[in-house]
């Protein structure tokens, strides 16, 4: 997400038109930039979880090969990650997805219930929401 910030220049000339972004209040700017920072922090946690989970289950070489195939090019797109893991590991990919999410939940201190039915995208969304709510609280 890009934030447009205009330089505020005091002028008495009525002929200078003000862009809409000119009116952006500092408070909302701060909120936007905090939100961006939270999203960036979450993306970094997710990338770490993917890396650690693959390396800890299948080793450094496998991780390096998957990264070279583009596994971490778009980590926040759950469908893309599922597609990539499935094309390499077939049915076994669902266990890797669980391991990744378990790692992420551990980092976020969210209890992970293995008995519940699992959907990678939904589980990721829950983690993202918890992270954002927790970040706002701090």
């Amino acid at each position, binding site marked *: 997400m890009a934030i447009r910030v205009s330089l505020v220049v005091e002028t008495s000339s009525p002929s200078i038109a003000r862009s809409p972004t000119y009116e952006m209040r500092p408070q909302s700017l701060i909120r936007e930039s905090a939100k961006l920072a939270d999203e960036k922090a979450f993306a970094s946690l997710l990338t770490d979880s993917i890396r650690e989970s693959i390396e800890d*289950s299948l*080793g450094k*070489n*496998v991780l390096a*090969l998957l990264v070279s*195939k583009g596994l971490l090019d778009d980590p926040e797109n759950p469908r893309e990650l599922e597609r990539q893991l499935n094309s390499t590991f*077939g049915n076994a990919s669902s*266990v890797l997805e669980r*391991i990744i999410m378990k790692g992420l939940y551990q980092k976020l201190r969210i209890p992970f219930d293995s008995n519940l039915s699992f959907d990678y995208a939904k589980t990721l969304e829950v983690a993202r929401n918890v992270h954002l709510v927790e970040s706002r609280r701090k």
Partner: protein
Amino acid sequence: MSEAQQIIATLLSSEVRGDLLVLFHRNSGLVDTIDGVARRIGRTGFSIENDVRDLVKLGVLKMKKIGSSEVILLDRARDREVLEAVANHIKSVNRSERS
């Protein structure tokens, strides 16, 4: 199914096996009873018996008798071989995708 595909299927056919792999790779010197290992991954000894047996059959884990207890540990040499086979399989998939 190729040998590598069978290996992948054996390694990752259940969440318990995934948990066991992560546990032993993070703690490669770990030696513990089946109940102790189960506790470390938040399960019971009974619930991981089958998965441990299959990983022992594959050779990644091994059982050893210490006194009156039977313990589980990682067979590092065989583990390296198995992970190498998985890596080679991915390389061959990559090659066939490119050609």
